[in-house]
Structure formats: structure tokens, C-alpha cells
């Protein structure tokens, strides 16, 4: 059973991303939305955690493009391996996984 985890806060504001990454299983997906996308910037403390999670835990990590654009984060500044999706992609992820867990 795979889970789509959504994280909507920056890792510099709350510990939702850490909590989330501590609970993911191989095959799960993590989608960064709203201020959550701030964590996906390459070369940052949170970005390094995401890069480690991508390499070690077998999870896929996604970021919502509209929320990145609203915060001035271009795609080429993202951690390698983080995939950008739009709202239709968010819907697809929610459908493809067996459950959706919001880390509020």
C-alpha cells in the first residue's frame, strides 16, 4: 500500500517535513505544496535532507509548480530528482496512491 504525503509548510517553519520523511515507506510519494516547496531548493539544509531521502528511502518527491512560481523558485534550482507537477498531476498522484496523508 502506497501513500501520498502532502507537506504544506517550509522546513524552516515547522517540522512537518522531518515527521513526514520519518514515516515514509519505499514506494510512497511526497508532494510539497504551498510553503512546502521552499524545502526543495538545492543546496539548502532542507534540500539536502530531501536529496538524502531520494537516495536512501525509495520515495518519490514532487513539488507543485504553481506554488514554486508564486515563491520565485525556478525548476533549475530544485534538488535533483524532485519532479514538478501541476494540479492535474496532484490529482493523479492522489489517485495512483492508496491513501493521502496531509502533514498539517
Amino acid at each position, binding site marked *: 500500500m502506497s501513500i501520498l504525503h*502532502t507537506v*504544506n509548510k517550509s522546513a524552516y517553519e515547522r517540522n512537518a517535513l522531518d515527521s513526514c520523511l520519518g514515516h515514509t515507506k519505499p514506494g510512497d510519494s511526497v508532494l510539497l505544496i504551498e510553503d512546502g516547496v521552499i524545502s526543495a531548493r538545492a543546496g539548502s539544509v532542507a534540500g539536502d535532507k530531501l536529496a538524502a531521502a531520494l537516495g536512501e528511502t525509495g520515495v518519490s518527491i514532487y513539488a507543485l509548480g504553481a506554488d514554486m512560481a508564486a515563491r520565485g523558485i525556478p525548476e533549475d534550482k530544485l534538488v535533483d530528482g524532485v519532479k514538478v507537477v*501541476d494540479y492535474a498531476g*496532484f*490529482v493523479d498522484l*492522489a*489517485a495512483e496512491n492508496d491513501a493521502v496523508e*496531509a502533514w*498539517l
Partner: protein
Amino acid sequence: MKFGILVNEGPYQHQASDSAYLFVKAALEKGHEVTRVFFYHDGVYNGTSYSVPPLDDRQITKQWSELAKEYDVDLVLCVAACQRRGMMDDGEAERHGKGANNVAEGFRISGLGQLIETGIQSDRLVTFGD
């Protein structure tokens, strides 16, 4: 696929209602069914007909009402959350001796059981909040 949606935050204060609206719209446009959007806590403010935002701003309540009309989406406001926050339909206003109905078109007030039902009847429950 059937999606149930939970919105826990009010409009303009937090992005949750914008994110939820855009998710619901995308799901409906892809041909999925949205069984119900349940508004809980400050989320009930999404359904006030007394909201008059500046014309060049997002018309969040109106957007929900239009979506409900176009796709027949059930927009439910939690009754206990409404009572605490001054949201009333005709029945509630009469019961509490208040003079107005401020529930916008397409929304209705009902109980928390509707959230549980949505969780049971939907394939996925997606939560938006703070």
C-alpha cells in the same frame, strides 16, 4: 474515482481554501467525482454570503458556489463550527433567534457525520489546512 475533500481553514488567511479549490477543479475536469467538500473549523468562513472582497481579488466564496452549480458538488459547513462563528441558515437563525441567513449559494449546514460519511464513501479523502 471518488474524492472527498476536507478544508480546515478560512479564505484569505491561509492558502488552504485556494489549494483545495484548485485541486477540486482539476479533479472534476479530469472526470473524477468529488463526493463532498466538508468545511470544518474556520473553513466554514468559505461559505459566507457576506464576503465582499475587492473586485480585483479572488472571489473565493463565489468560486465555490459556481463550482457547486456547474458540477453539482455538495459543499457542507460543519454546524458546530458555524454556530461558534456566526454562520446561519434560515433554520439555524430561527432556532437561535437571529435575524439573518448568511450561507452562500451552493453551501449547506450539516453535522460532522457528513465528514465521516465522506470518508467512508470516497476512495480518497484529501485534507487542506494550516
